[in-house]
């Protein structure tokens, strides 16, 4: 999948902000957005979580969840072998049932991109067409504590190696210090580094690391900031900080995406990542997407789950729906 071009993103931001994206302008804009009432937000998320998804709806939901997963391995111990194993699982999640959909993407560290691309072979491509993308975390993931030059080099290297999507982290320190202009510029620069020589561009997911932003007001502002700076996706977490994705945080980010669409007509994706392990939880996210931004958002270029263990739970539930009984951990492959 292709990211939006930088030029339109910048023009759009200038039109919305009514001025250059410096600290003062951004501060005025971001602090003018209505606040978030934490109690009310959490109540709404809890209410969405009580939807009862049964039978045919559940079967649809389970397949949909699989097709929206970024199957992830982000370990210091990752090896080419581990990545090949992950890719095999992504292409054929349930060997006992060939009707099982493929996941949307595999998500790896930048240096593992060549192995993922190689292992995918012909299956490598746009998940909207049923192929599998390669997503790479970049920009000194997960802390983002590095110079811009290194972040850009990190990004460019992953794109050159064949990454279709870049999962960058924002500089939370700069954000919390109120240096919104700096965060904006870095996102925009990384976006530029996503460009390929042929003029196309890798899709950019901007990780807010909501567990470090702490307040919902911060999450909302960081979401707007990331979208204004040109992010194609806003993503909750690296998975390395607790809490990672939560339903209220995801709901809040979906509301921002919905409002951005109302304002500009432009659609931005949302990716909750980390901590979503059960089908039951994942279905709550689908419900939240469908009832907040609409069902049309449930496609790989607008919604993803960043997860690893979730896939096997969905496969178990899928087997249960087909056979009427629960199997067990040995009836799905470990990766």
């Amino acid at each position, binding site marked *: 999948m292709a990211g939006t071009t930088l030029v339109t993103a910048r023009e759009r931001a200038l039109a919305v902000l009514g001025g250059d994206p410096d600290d003062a302008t951004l501060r005025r804009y971001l602090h003018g957005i*209505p*606040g*978030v009432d934490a*109690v009310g*937000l959490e109540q*709404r998320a809890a209410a969405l979580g*009580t939807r*009862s*998804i049964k039978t045919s709806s559940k079967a649809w939901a389970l397949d949909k969840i699989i097709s929206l997963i970024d199957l992830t391995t982000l370990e210091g111990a990752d090896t080419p072998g581990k990545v090949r194993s992950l890719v095999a699982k992504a292409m054929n999640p349930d060997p006992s049932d060939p009707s099982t959909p493929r996941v949307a993407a595999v998500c790896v560290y930048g240096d593992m991109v060549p192995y993922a691309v190689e292992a995918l072979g012909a299956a490598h491509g746009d998940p909207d067409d049923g192929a599998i993308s390669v997503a790479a975390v970049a920009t000194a993931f997960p802390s983002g504590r590095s110079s811009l030059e290194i972040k850009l080099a990190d990004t460019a290297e992953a794109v050159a190696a064949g990454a279709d999507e870049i999962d960058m982290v924002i500089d939370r320190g700069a954000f919390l210090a109120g240096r919104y202009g700096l965060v904006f510029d870095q996102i925009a620069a990384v976006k530029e580094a996503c460009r390929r020589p042929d003029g196309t561009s890798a899709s950019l997911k901007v990780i807010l690391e909501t567990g470090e932003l702490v307040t919902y007001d911060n999450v909302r502002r960081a979401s707007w900031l990331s979208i204004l700076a040109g992010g194609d996706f806003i993503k909750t977490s690296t998975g390395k900080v607790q809490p990672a994705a939560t339903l209220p945080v995801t709901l809040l980010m979906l509301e921002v995406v919905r409002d951005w669409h109302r304002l500009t007509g432009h659609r931005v994706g949302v990716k909750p990542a980390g901590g979503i392990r059960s089908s039951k939880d994942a279905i709550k996210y689908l419900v939240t997407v469908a*009832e907040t931004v609409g069902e049309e958002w449930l496609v790989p270029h607008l919604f993803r789950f960043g997860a690893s263990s979730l896939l096997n739970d969905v496969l178990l539930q899928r087997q249960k729906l087909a056979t009427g009984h629960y199997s067990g951990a040995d009836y799905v492959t470990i990766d």
Partner: protein
Amino acid sequence: MSFLEYAPAPESRAILSLRDSYGLFIDGEFVAGRGTPFQTISPSSEERIAEIADANEQDVADAVAAARRAYDRVWSRMSGRDRGKYLFRIARLVQERARELAVAESLDNGKPIKESRDVDVPLVAAWFFYYAGWADKLDHAGLGADPRALGVAAQVIPWNFPLLMLAWKIAPALAAGNTVVLKPAETTPLTALLFAEILQQADLPPGVVNIVTGAGDTGAALVAHPDVDKVAFTGSTAVGRAIAKQIAGTHKKATLELGGKAANIVFDDAPVDQAIEGIVNGIFFNQGHVCCAGSRLLVQESIHDEVVDRLKSRLSTLRLGDPLDKNTDIGAINSREQLERIRTLSDIGEAEGAERWSVPCEMPENGFWFAPTIFTGVETSHRIAREEVFGPVLSVLSFRTPQEAIAKANNTPYGLSAGIWSDKGSRILAVADQLRAGVIWANTFNRFDPASPFGGFKESGYGREGGRHGLGAYLAPAAIGGRTAAPRAIERTDASAEASVAATKPKARARRAAAAKKGAAK
């Protein structure tokens, strides 16, 4: 397929084992009524659920006599600690039978199962737990040492929260040491009768709680009965006014919880997404059959259009239909009569020049249904801005300054509740201070807790239910005393208290019932 057309997820009715007909619950037993029995139907399908006895004046007199006997002989003599044990037992039984009660409530009332399951029934249990804790602490109820119960309480409750209103009435009455005759609403008697079964299960001494079913006549006979010491009523202002007149000049004390036309005020700095949820919850919760519903939306003019726009898109995601489906947001209107009233007032709103918008949704063929509706361009002089619709109909008005919002909010004969939405704490406090309403919610709406007193200003009634205030409504200071105050039992040690509750096990109960029947025969 569309994911949002969630596959049906109906709550099973198998958990219910209803009788074909129900008698009156008097003196611990179900007895036949002397009036002509009536049918209770499910408002979502108009199917018959069960036949219900109708209590005439004589039946009411029997019930009051049973309550009097139970008060004189058992309940007023029992220690607070022991009364509390019964209330704790009732609370636990409500929790144990929660699913059954929720299904029965949704069936009989038409409210969505998610509300009866997640709001009504848990609050019922909470109310009994809360007042169970008060039963042995009446010295701290604010009336000085050793306050007295009033005696026999006549309680008449509405159809919008049948079991919850029962709990609001019965729990504090029993904790304070009163006995009760309760009349549930004609259209929703079912859960009160299931509750009577719970009382039998809890082995509550006969006559402490009596439940008489019937229509308005039954309620009128109950309120008029000379041996009643306290009247507690929740319902319309017209009936409340009639009751107040009827009991004026008698010894009867009264608490009246009547209508409302609450203002839900949204300032331009409100957390807008949560405010939208609050507006929806304020007026479409329980199909708007809520006396404290936020039926008048006062929104600051600068954000009026945006709020209305967002509200409409949010309303389009509401799911109207089978109350027993776990995904239903909007259930059925409780009765044909109420549906007619909602239709009439909505037509008047349109005729008066307000702009009507209803959620485009398919209505089930049978039953009583009304699509969530909002009126924009409503002026304070319109009837839909003044009269209580008691249905899923929201009137949207605008204001320019906090002063104007306060003036408009207070410009109503009612004063039950109000809501304020703002991110600015100082504004919330300043506005709340000037609103004449019994309950004021800030950045939320329609939240209830047993510890919080609930009640109205002006035509919304008087007296408070819930909290310490709600307890006080069933007590008199020691110096004044109940009319038939019996000597209070001396608080016993834990061990003997256990023994006393054990002594009310079936054998003793049968003995007492026999004695009571003998008494009645005389």
